[in-house]
């Protein structure tokens, strides 16, 4: 009798202890991101802050991986049941993954959270909707940005607050600033550096849209970027290298970034995500803002957008989904800090806030927000169909083909992709 009583007591206390620990255990969220740049550190700080505030309730574990790895592994991760609970995806890749059925539909949840379109930069809010259903919640828009070295401008007698903003003045200024400063016969300061590879697609794309061009026809069955708008865009860029000689040829990917940090380049173009890296570089006195209107018709600038997605799990864990949504909402409300890390917050209230606009660089870059240009629709094969354009730009930059030849070849290949 006594033995039984002891056993029952022990079992009961064990059960109590276990249930307490279950109650006390926080919901752990696996969060996959692609922020391999300086923006990764910013996101980690935000995650740490969230974890502190919600200690014991929700714990977010963040992973960073290169975009290529992420897109290759997210599908297999979902299939094998190892998918993260929440992740960041680029807006242009959403249709692919939504069509694979691996993203959770978020319409109902968005209503619950009280998120409305008017609060957001319009194209990035709409970008989350595919075939009438919402699969993502926007975090930011990240445009191509013009960075210029103010010291180089001053040394040449130019106004360091007024970089060139149109086609002709850009050529004039970069010509002036391409110099052999130590007289050894070798140019050691370049007006600009256009890289062979990332992110040159974004320079060309911006000019294409500034020329009022589009990549694909209305129903995305034909590539049309070898039209006048596209060829003019590519010709302008290759002329900078070979005719006006304001950029060296054969610039390796990221060599332009390194050269800008060393103070050897007057004007450099890269995403807003490089901002933190330049700010952290000691002694670099630079400005950042909207890119010039190199094109003929209107202002436009390439932008991507990071969107939160929730992968579809084998079985819906309501607790984890709720926790993920709380995390997403929290980050949205703290998107000022995220913006400071080098992004344009998708939430208009944050983007247009006094605090954001008063930041010397971000305020200037925020002027680009109304001009972010997205293709009329992203679609399943967008990534694969634009691949040939990337190759074409590189071939033209390397002087292997004329812009027209290169884009014609790219359109032919792109149409093959679209035909599938």
């Amino acid at each position, binding site marked *: 009798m006594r033995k039984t009583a002891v056993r029952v007591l022990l079992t009961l206390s064990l059960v109590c202890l276990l249930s307490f620990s279950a109650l006390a255990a926080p919901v752990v969220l696996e969060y996959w991101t692609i922020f391999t740049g300086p923006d990764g550190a910013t996101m980690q700080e935000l995650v740490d802050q969230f974890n502190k505030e919600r200690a014991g309730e929700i714990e977010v574990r963040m992973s960073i991986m290169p975009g290529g790895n992420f*897109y*290759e592994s997210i*599908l*297999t991760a*979902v*299939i094998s049941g190892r998918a993260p609970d929440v992740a960041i995806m680029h807006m242009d890749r959403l249709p*692919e993954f939504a069509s*694979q*059925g*691996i993203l959770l539909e978020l319409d109902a949840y968005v209503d619950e959270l009280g998120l409305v379109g008017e609060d957001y930069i319009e194209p990035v809010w709409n970008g989350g909707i595919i075939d009438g259903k919402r699969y993502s919640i926007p975090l930011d828009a990240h445009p191509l940005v013009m960075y210029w070295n103010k010291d180089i401008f001053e040394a040449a007698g130019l106004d360091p607050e007024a970089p060139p903003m149109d086609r002709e003045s850009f050529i004039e200024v970069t010509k002036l600033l391409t110099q052999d400063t130590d007289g050894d016969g070798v140019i050691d300061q370049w007006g600009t550096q256009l890289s*062979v*590879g990332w992110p040159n697609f974004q320079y060309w794309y911006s000019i294409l849209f500034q020329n009022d061009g589009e990549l694909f026809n209305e129903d995305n069955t034909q590539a049309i970027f070898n039209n006048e708008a596209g060829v003019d865009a590519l010709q302008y860029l290759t002329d900078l290298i070979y005719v006006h000689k304001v950029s060296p*040829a*054969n*610039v*390796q*990917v990221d*060599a332009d970034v*390194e*050269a800008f940090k060393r103070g050897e380049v007057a004007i450099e173009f890269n995403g807003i995500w490089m901002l933190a890296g330049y700010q952290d570089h000691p002694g670099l006195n630079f400005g950042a803002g909207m890119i010039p209107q190199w094109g003929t018709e209107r202002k436009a600038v390439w932008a991507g957008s990071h969107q939160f997605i929730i992968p579809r799990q084998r079985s819906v864990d309501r607790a984890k989904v709720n926790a993920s949504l709380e995390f997403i909402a929290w980050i949205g409300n703290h998107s000022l800090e995220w913006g400071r890390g080098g992004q344009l917050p998708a939430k208009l209230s944050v983007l247009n806030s006094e605090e954001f606009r008063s930041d010397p660089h971000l305020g200037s870059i925020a002027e680009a927000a109304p001009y972010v240009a997205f293709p009329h629709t992203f679609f399943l094969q967008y990534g*694969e169909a634009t691949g040939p354009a990337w*190759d074409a730009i*590189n*071939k033209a930059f*390397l002087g*292997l083909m004329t812009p027209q030849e290169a884009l014609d070849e790219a359109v032919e*290949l792109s149409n*093959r*992709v679209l*035909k*599938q």
Partner: protein
Amino acid sequence: MRAIARPRRSLFGDEGRLTPYLYLLPHAILFFMFVIYPIFKGFWVSLTEWNMFFNEGTFVGFANYARLFNPESIQNAYYWQALKATLLFVVISVPPLVLISLGLAVLVTSNLPWRSFFRTIYFMPTALTISVVAVMWRWIFQGDVGFANWVLRALGGDAIPWLTTQPYAWISILIATIWWTVGWNMILLVSGLNAIPHDQYEAATIDGANSWKSFRYITLPNLRPILLFIVITTVIASFNLFGQPQLMTGGGPSRSTVTVMYYIYGEAFGNFRMGSSAAMSYSTAVIMLVATFAQAKLFSAKDQDS
């Protein structure tokens, strides 16, 4: 005469009838799971439009193979381009990889001082993984601040755009690959060289052979089996080139260093077309098999001559 009944052998134990098979069983299971089954499953996948999410496919016959020959498909453009690039690499890499390792093996088995130190350091790169090798060489070949161009400028020359233009992109990949893998063939040849009986050389010297003649008539024929093995495996390894272009050039400039494996990988995990990708793998396997047989025949034909 009375017949003597022989005791029946037991199934298990030292003399057991099943015992040899039990020893083979673990390896056989793994071999079946990881080699035999995937070979057949993969071929099946290549005959379907495979959906990775549902782990099933719709049968399409040889459509994936036919697509490679259809001038309107993107695979037709990119697969043959990748194959050409791969063949180019095989042609430029196999001779140096075999000859340099042969030269090093001869040096390392000669009477030169410090030869075992050199043998070790030539072999050490093979212990590294591709990621380490590729990142290292990508920095060495970096256009502005890489070591290679630093040396060139110090010698009064011009910087070379190693990774952004051809032919330097291939040269960069070639140099990195040779540095990384030459030690492997070298070690095989060292063991081959050490196995050659000394009396053959002595007999040759008595007959008045100089070192080149000994090399040609004693060393090489003795090394034939190992050389055949090395040539075949090096050709296969070069056919499989993947990590170096992926990590050093990203397939650039403009897809010129996209090899067949890199493209197959992209088709499967970038474009999610498993069936098409599998068909390309099998086509490539057939090409490699043909190449291997041709090499083996070439070597044995030479055998009959000598």
